[in-house]
């Protein structure tokens, strides 16, 4: 194999209307010292459709050690360049002949756990980077735990700087063994270790000549073959309704993106929140009608009977496992915001398309990411991962994260500032109303009498009704009144 198998455009005449075979979202995590930005920069430089001006930028650059500075392709913000660290997530896009790659570059430092977690939540595959001289560190363990929590199922351990340990097989095998032990604790579907040198390009986009003892795939080879999260719709059919579209005549389409599974024309579907069912009459898009809508497709579904479904509903297959209509959930949450949790504050829970006021959050424990032990706790602050029990002001349709990832996730939203203060995955959900006895029932009648008397039955008015109900509940809660929305 030649030294650099860069995919140059002149060698592969691009076809008009060329559509790539899906998208692979690739998270990179590790600390600055491990050479993360250099590794991805190198991958871009060697294997992608990088433009000439970007290539020239790298060719002109030098690091202290006299090598081109591949990391220039990654670190974005001026402040970050000055400090030489990656603070926020940066997104990079490149194509090989096969695939679109989205590189999500995330910070490694402990104080940026939240950024890593949010970056990881978008990833199909994660590259964890370690320095061959130091091996698996506490940080690697922390990163693996975060990946597991947010649902990344494929990980690659890139053992970098192999050039600095004389391409030693022994060193690599020892690190690989540590990595195996580590991954056994998590739910990874696929975990491999690859010995690389980002600076020299060994095993990045071409097989290393320095490490003939390694017979596994090089990094790019693995990335081009591995499955993206998007392929093969798994799980039960779920369509969280975003909005209702009308043509002014007889079309009433429940618009949304299929979160999981698929649905065909004629299938019987249910809205668990209202308990009503109907058959799919039409799956419409602007281009043409579909016979089947699969995971990832944005469609508008018309039902054969006009059941009363609005934004926030989750349309599901009637004949298989239904979502849970939950008034209370158990969850693992990652606190994302500088302001710590304060139960006196008003919070809302956002799922795919629903937004419900939170009546109570009770934190039970914090997860120590390095020992993976649980410490009892009652509060949570930035970068913490906690187990918590959340009581909702009204039931919402959800699944557990283990059963169905796309409908098992949520954000906690600060009612006043609007900030997304935490992200969470549902570990258990209790069907039915939460048992907060003595709670004040905020009913439709109460709202219609005054606060919402100007609202009618249009979709817009119903959305506004919901919004006012949420806000009224938040106000009452902040005055110390337990509220249950019953509309």
């Amino acid at each position, binding site marked *: 194999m030649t030294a650099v198998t860069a995919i140059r455009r002149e060698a592969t005449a691009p076809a008009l209307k060329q559509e790539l075979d899906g998208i692979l979202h690739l998270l990179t995590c590790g600390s600055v010292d491990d050479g993360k930005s250099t590794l991805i920069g190198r991958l871009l430089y060697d294997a992608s459709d990088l433009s000439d001006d970007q290539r020239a930028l790298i060719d002109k650059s030098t690091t202290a050690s006299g090598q081109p500075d591949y990391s220039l392709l990654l670190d974005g*913000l001026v402040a970050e360049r000055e400090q030489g660290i990656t603070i926020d997530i940066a997104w*990079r896009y490149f194509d090989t002949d096969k695939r679109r790659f989205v590189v999500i570059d995330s910070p490694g430092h402990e104080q940026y756990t939240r950024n890593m977690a949010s970056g990881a939540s978008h990833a199909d595959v994660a590259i964890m980077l370690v320095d061959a001289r130091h091996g698996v560190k506490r940080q690697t363990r922390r990163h693996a735990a975060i990946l597991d929590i947010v649902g990344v199922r494929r990980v690659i351990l890139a053992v970098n700087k192999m050039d600095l340990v004389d391409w030693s097989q022994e060193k690599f095998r020892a690190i690989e063994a540590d990595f195996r032990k580590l991954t056994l604790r998590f739910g990874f579907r696929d975990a491999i270790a690859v010995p690389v040198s980002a600076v020299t390009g060994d095993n990045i986009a071409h097989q290393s000549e320095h490490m003939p003892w390694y017979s596994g795939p090089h990094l790019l080879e693995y990335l081009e073959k591995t499955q993206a999260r998007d392929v093969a719709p798994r799980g039960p059919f779920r369509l969280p309704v975003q909005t209702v579209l009308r043509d002014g005549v007889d079309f009433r389409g429940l618009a*949304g*993106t299929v979160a999981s599974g698929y649905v065909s024309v004629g299938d019987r579907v249910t809205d668990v929140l209202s308990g009503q069912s109907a058959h799919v009459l039409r799956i419409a898009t602007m281009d043409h009608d579909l016979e089947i809508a699969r995971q990832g497709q944005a469609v508008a579904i018309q039902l054969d009977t006009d059941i009363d479904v609005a934004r926030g509903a989750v349309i599901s297959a009637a004949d298989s496992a239904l979502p849970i209509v939950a008034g209370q959930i158990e969850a693992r949450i990652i606190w994302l915001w500088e302001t710590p949790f304060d139960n006196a504050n008003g919070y809302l829970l956002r799922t795919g398309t629903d937004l419900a006021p939170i009546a109570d959050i009770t934190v039970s424990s914090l997860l120590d990411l390095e020992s993976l032990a649980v410490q009892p706790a009652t509060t949570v602050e930035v970068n913490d991962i906690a187990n918590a029990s959340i009581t909702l002001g009204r039931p919402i349709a959800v699944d557990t994260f283990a059963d169905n990832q796309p409908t098992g996730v949520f954000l906690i939203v600060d009612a006043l500032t*609007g900030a997304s203060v935490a992200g969470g995955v549902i570990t258990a959900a209790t069907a039915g109303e939460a048992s907060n006895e003595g709670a004040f029932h905020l009913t439709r009648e109460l709202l219609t009498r005054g606060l919402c008397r100007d609202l009618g039955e249009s979709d817009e008015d119903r959305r506004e009704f919901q919004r006012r109900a949420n806000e009224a509940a938040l106000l009452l809660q902040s005055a110390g009144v337990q509220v249950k929305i019953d509309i």
Partner: protein
Amino acid sequence: MSAQFSHLDLLEAEAIHIFREAAAQFRKPVLMYSIGKDSTVLLHLARKAFWPQKLPFPLLHIDTKWKFRDMITFRDKTVRDFNLDLIVHTNEDGLKRGVNPYDHSPSVYTDVMKTQPLKQALDKYGFDAAFGGARRDEESSRAKERVFSFRSPGHRWDPRRQRPEMWNLLNGRLGPGETVRVFPMSNWTERDVWRYIARENLDVVPLYFAAERPTIVRNGQLLVIDDDRLPLQPDEVPELRSVRFRTLGCWPLTAAVASTANDLESVVTETLGARTSERQGRLIDHDQTGAMERKKQEGYF
């Protein structure tokens, strides 16, 4: 195993999802329409998101009065063809003060004729959300941009206080005085835009196709002379050259490239093989290091 959907299918579905989420969550959105190829795709995606309804928000064009005449013609035809509501806004004060793209530095001109009027228009009509066609691959500070990008009062962007975005959950709850810029095409690349234009057979401004146009060379850049307002040096005699544009802006600030690609197929082929990033042709972005990051903090799109 091959993917079920091509990357364009996935990008289209994601953009539709974002449009529908934003329209449901914000009180009064507007679509920033700048007439170029990205706006063309953005508008097409919006129409798909709400079909068979009429677009539930208007278009806003910030007119600096220095757009190519072909752009304005195209804009007006698009509005007619798709039965859209268009708001055109110009910074009349800047116009009166004679701020123009040749006497003033690109950064002053952009601030007065683009950033200021954008903020004026958003305030005047009370829009709480503005859709834009910005892509993360355009420039390094955009690479850190969110899909829902919140702006503090005064429309300022604070890269340090961006809300984390997790999974495909979009939180549109506004804090006091906040507005939001929404970027449905965050994950698209320039090549995707062209591939999609070809796939969907979309009309674009003719300036994207090569034709003989009167040009001068200034600072090593090819400028197409669209009218007689730009003062020329004695040695700057407009010459007919076959050129096209990769990106469209104000004509004295947008460099053309020599090309003979005069139909969609050849433009796409040329772009797929392009070896320079597109904003090379935008003179404002080279003004100084971190130029885009600074402009964004001041409220530029």
